[in-house]
C-alpha cells in the first residue's frame, strides 16, 4: 500500500504541473491541451480509441514475442562461437543504426501492408536490447560453473538450459524490459509504414490535423500499454528469479 503512495504522488504532481502549465502560462492549446480537455476527449472517443489501441497492442505483443523468440537464440549463437559473433554482430548493429521508416518503401513493396511487415518492423526496433543483454548474461558464467557442467558432460543444449540460461535470466529480463517498452514505439512506427488503424495511424493524422487533444490521448494510451507491459515483466521477474540478488536484496539495498 505505502509503496504506491510515491508513484501516485508523482503522478498527481505531474498532472498538476501539466494543468498549471496548460492553464496559467501562455502555452497555447495547439501545443499542450489541458488535462481536462484530454480526459474529455478520451471519454468521448473511448470505444474508438480502444479499438485502435487494441490493434497497436496486438502488433506490440507479436513484435515483442518475436524479439524474445529470435533474440535469445541469436544471443546464444553469438556466445557459442567467436566466429558467429564476428559474423553476425556487425549486421545486428547495422539493423539498429537507421530509422526503420526510412525503409518503408522497401518493406511495403516486399511485404505489403498486412500484419507481418508491422510485426517485422516492431521486431527490428525491439530485438537488439534482448540480444545484447542476453549475450552479457550468457557470457557471465564463471570458470567454476563451466567446469561443473563440463564434468557432468553436459551437452550444448543442457549447458544452455540448465546453466547458462537461468544464470543469464536476470540480465535477459533487463533486456526484455527495455524491449517491451521499445515494442510499443516499434508498433507505432510500424503503423507509420502502412496502416489505416492503430494508435500510430491516429498519431500521424492528429499531428497533421493539429489535433493535440487526440495526440495526447494517443500518447496516454501508449503510455498505459507500455507501463502495463513493463510491469508485467517486472512481475514475472519475481517468479522467474526469486533466487537472484536483484530480487532477494531489493528490500535491503544497502547495509550501511
Amino acid at each position, binding site marked *: 500500500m505505502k509503496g504506491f503512495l510515491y508513484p501516485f504522488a508523482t503522478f498527481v504532481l505531474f498532472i498538476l504541473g501539466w494543468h498549471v502549465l496548460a492553464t496559467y502560462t501562455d502555452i497555447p492549446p495547439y501545443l499542450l491541451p489541458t488535462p481536462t480537455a484530454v480526459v474529455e476527449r478520451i471519454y468521448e472517443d473511448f470505444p474508438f480509441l480502444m479499438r485502435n489501441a487494441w490493434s497497436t497492442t496486438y502488433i506490440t505483443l507479436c513484435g515483442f514475442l518475436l524479439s524474445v523468440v529470435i533474440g535469445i537464440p541469436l544471443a546464444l549463437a553469438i556466445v557459442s562461437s567467436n566466429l558467429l559473433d564476428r559474423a553476425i554482430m556487425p549486421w545486428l548493429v547495422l539493423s539498429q543504426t537507421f530509422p526503420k521508416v526510412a525503409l518503408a518503401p522497401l518493406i511495403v513493396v516486399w511485404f505489403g501492408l498486412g500484419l507481418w511487415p508491422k510485426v517485422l518492423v516492431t521486431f527490428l526496433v525491439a530485438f537488439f536490447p534482448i540480444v545484447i543483454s542476453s549475450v552479457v548474461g550468457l557470457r557471465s558464467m564463471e570458470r*567454476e*560453473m563451466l*567446469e*561443473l*557442467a*563440463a*564434468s*557432468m*558432460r*553436459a551437452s550444448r543444449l*543442457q549447458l544452455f538450459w*540448465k*546453466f547458462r540460461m*537461468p*544464470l543469464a535470466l536476470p540480465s535477459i529480463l533487463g533486456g526484455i524490459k527495455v524491449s517491451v517498452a521499445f515494442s510499443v514505439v516499434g508498433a507505432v512506427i510500424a503503423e507509420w509504414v502502412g496502416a489505416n488503424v492503430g494508435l500510430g495511424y491516429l498519431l500521424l493524422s492528429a499531428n497533421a490535423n493539429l489535433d493535440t487533444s487526440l495526440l495526447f490521448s494517443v500518447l496516454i494510451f501508449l503510455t498505459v500499454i507500455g507501463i502495463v507491459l513493463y510491469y508485467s515483466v517486472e512481475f514475472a521477474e519475481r517468479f522467474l*528469479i526469486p*533466487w*537472484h540478488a536483484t530480487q*532477494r536484496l531489493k528490500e535491503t539495498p544497502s547495509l550501511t
Partner: protein
Amino acid sequence: MSELINIKGVSKRFDELLALDNINLTVRDGEFVAIVGSSGCGKSTLLRLIAGLLPTSEGIVEVNGHKVKGPADDVGIAFQTPVLLPWRSVVENVSLQLEVRKLPKAKYETELRRLIELVGLNGFEDRKPYELSGGMQQRVALCRALIHNPALLLMDEPFGALDAMTREQLNLELQRIWMETRKTIVLITHSIIEAVFLADRVVVMSPRPGRITKIIDVPVPRPRSFSGLGDPAFQAACDEVRTLMNASGLTE
C-alpha cells in the same frame, strides 16, 4: 589391478607461471589415493588435468588407457568450492547430476534421500543455497559428486569446511562406500591424518613448481577405524608425511 589413471611427464604452465612440473603418477583401478601439499602447490590443477577440464602444457594424462581430451564419463567431482546453482534447492542441486547425465531420477530417489540424511541435511531439502551455511553447501556438493555412484571420484578438499565430528563421520562413510563399490578415489586434503587414514597411497607434493616429492604407501589393513589409529604403520606414515611437509602436525 589395471591402471586407471596414468599421468606421464605432465607439466602445466599458466603463462609464465609453472604450476606443475613433470608429474608422473599412476593410479590403479579401485585404488584410493590422497594428495597433500602446501597451498598453491598445484593440487587442484592436477585434479583438473585428470578430470579433463584443463589441457596439459606438456606430457599426457591417460584415463582407462585413453588420452584425456575432455571430461570422462562416470566420474564424480567435488570441487574445492561448492559451486551450487543458486536457483536450485538442495535436492535439485544434487539431482542436477542425474538430470544432466540423463539418469532416471526415480531410481535414485532413495539413494538421494539416504545421502542427504547421511550428510545431515535432512530438513533442508528445499532450501536454496543462500540459506545454507558454508559447511552445508559443501555437503550438498559432496552429495552431488556421489549420487550417480561414479567409478572414479575426484575430491578437492571435500571436508574442509566441516567440523571435526561431521568430518570423522563422513570419512568413515567414504571408506565404507569405497570398500563396497571399489571406486577409484583421488582425494585432495590438507589433513594429513585424513589422508593417511583413508588412502592406500599418499602423494606428497612440493610447491612452485608443483612436483611430487614422494609417494607413501599406507600398509594399514581395512576397514580402518579411528580407534585403531595408534597402529605403528599408521603413525609412521603420518610422521613421514609430516616431516616431508614440514609440519608439527598438531594443529591440523
